[in-house]
C-alpha cells in the first residue's frame, strides 16, 4: 500500500461516506405482520423448552488411571497385611522378655500361638529335648535337632500365650536355660527356666 492510497481513503471519509453507510444500515427492514407473529410464537415455544444439558463425560488420562489403580492396590495390600498376615518370627527362648509381640497364627488354632525357638549348646550331648509344662514334662515329646554347625541344639515350638516353665533334658539330666530367667520355684532341687509368650507387655 502506497502513501497515495492512504490519502484517497482519508478524503473519502471526510466527504461523509461513513455517515451514509450507517444511515443505510439502521434503516428498518419491512417485515410482514404474519412473519413477525410466527417468529414471536416460535421464540415463545423455545423459551418454554428446558435448556439442553451437556452430557458429563468422565475421562482420565492413562497415567492417572494407572497411578490410581496402583494406589488402590497398595492400600489393599497394606490392609491385608495388617489384618491377615502377621510376620512369622522364631524368637529364641533367650529373648523371652524382649519378644512379647511375635505371634503367628497356626493352622486350625483359634487362640494366638507363638513359635518360640529353643536353643541349647551341648556339643558332647547325644540326645537333648525340651521339657516343660507345655508337654507335660515329657522328655520324649520334643526332641531337639543338632544344628549343622557347632554343638547347638535347636527346636521351634508353638506355644500358647502365657508363662511357661521349662528345662532341657540332656542325655537324661535336666538343665536350666542359661539365657532365660529362672523360674524361681525350684521345689525339686533342679532349677527351671521361664518363657513368656505373647500378651500385653
Amino acid at each position, binding site marked *: 500500500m502506497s502513501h497515495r492510497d492512504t490519502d484517497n481513503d482519508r478524503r473519502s471519509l471526510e466527504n461523509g461516506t461513513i455517515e451514509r453507510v450507517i444511515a443505510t444500515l439502521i434503516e428498518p427492514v419491512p417485515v410482514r405482520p404474519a412473519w413477525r407473529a410466527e417468529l414471536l410464537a416460535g421464540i415463545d415455544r423455545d423459551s418454554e423448552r428446558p435448556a439442553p444439558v451437556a452430557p458429563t463425560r468422565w475421562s482420565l488420562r492413562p497415567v492417572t488411571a494407572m497411578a490410581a489403580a496402583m494406589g488402590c492396590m497398595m492400600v489393599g495390600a497394606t490392609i491385608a497385611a495388617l489384618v491377615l498376615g502377621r510376620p512369622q518370627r522364631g524368637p529364641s527362648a533367650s529373648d523371652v522378655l524382649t519378644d512379647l509381640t511375635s505371634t503367628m497364627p497356626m493352622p486350625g488354632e483359634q487362640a494366638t500361638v507363638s513359635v518360640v525357638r529353643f536353643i541349647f549348646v551341648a556339643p558332647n550331648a547325644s540326645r537333648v529335648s525340651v521339657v516343660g509344662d507345655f508337654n*507335660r*514334662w515329657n522328655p*520324649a515329646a520334643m526332641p531337639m535337632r543338632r544344628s549343622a554347625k557347632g554343638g547347638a541344639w535347636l527346636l521351634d515350638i508353638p506355644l500358647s*500365650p502365657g508363662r511357661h516353665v521349662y528345662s532341657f533334658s540332656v542325655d537324661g539330666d535336666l538343665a536350666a536355660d542359661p539365657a532365660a530367667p529362672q523360674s524361681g*520355684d525350684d521345689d*525339686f532341687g533342679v532349677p527351671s527356666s*521361664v518363657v513368656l509368650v505373647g500378651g500385653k507387655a
Partner: protein
Amino acid sequence: MKITRTVFAFLIGSASLTNAGAQQSATLPGGFSSPEGHTQLSPATRQAITQLGDSLRAVHLPDAPIYAKAAEGLLKAADETRILAAVRTLARELGEARESLGGGADESELTAGASALHVGATPATLAQLRETQRSAGGGDRSLAVPLVALVDLLARRVPPPVASAAIDSLVAKRAPPEDFAALRAAVKQDILAGRTPEAAVRARAQGLLHADGRARTP
C-alpha cells in the same frame, strides 16, 4: 460330674500317651503323665491333687499350674510327699497372688506372682507393683514381665527390698520389656564377675533409669 472329669482326664491322658509314643502308662488328673514311668503317684496323692484343682477352679483360679507342678516333680524324681507339698504351696501362693494383684490378674501374672512370693517377695510388694503400674497409667499392661524379672533377681540372691525397689522404679517409668531383660542379663553378668547381687542391681537399675533417649512404649 466326677465321672465326667475322670473320663476327660482319661481322654487327655490317652492323647498324651499316644503323642509320646505310648511308652508310659502313669497319668495324673488333668492329663499330666509321668514320662519315664518309673514313678507313679498313689491314688491318695492323685485324689488330693484333684481335690486341690477342684478347689482352685471353684474360686476361679487356674488349676493347670498345680498339675504341671506335679508332672515336673515326677520327672525330677521327687517323692510324693514333696510333690504334694509343692502343689499345696503353689495353690496357696496362687491365691495370695490374686489377693495382692487384684481380681483382674491374668494367669501369667498369677503364676509369676506366685513364684515371686515363693522366692521371697511379700504380698505387699506385689500390691505395690500393681499400684505403681496404675499410677503410671499402665493399667492396661500386664505385670508378667516385671514379675518374671523380679523372680529372676530374687533367685539370684538379690535382697528382696532392693530387687523390689528396682523393679518398681522401672514399672513407674513404664519401662519396655527390653529394659527388664537388660536388667536381668546385666545383673547376672555382674554377679558372675564377682559383684554382689545388691550392688549389681542398684548400679544397673540406675543406669537404665537414667538412660536418655530410650523409647518408651505407650
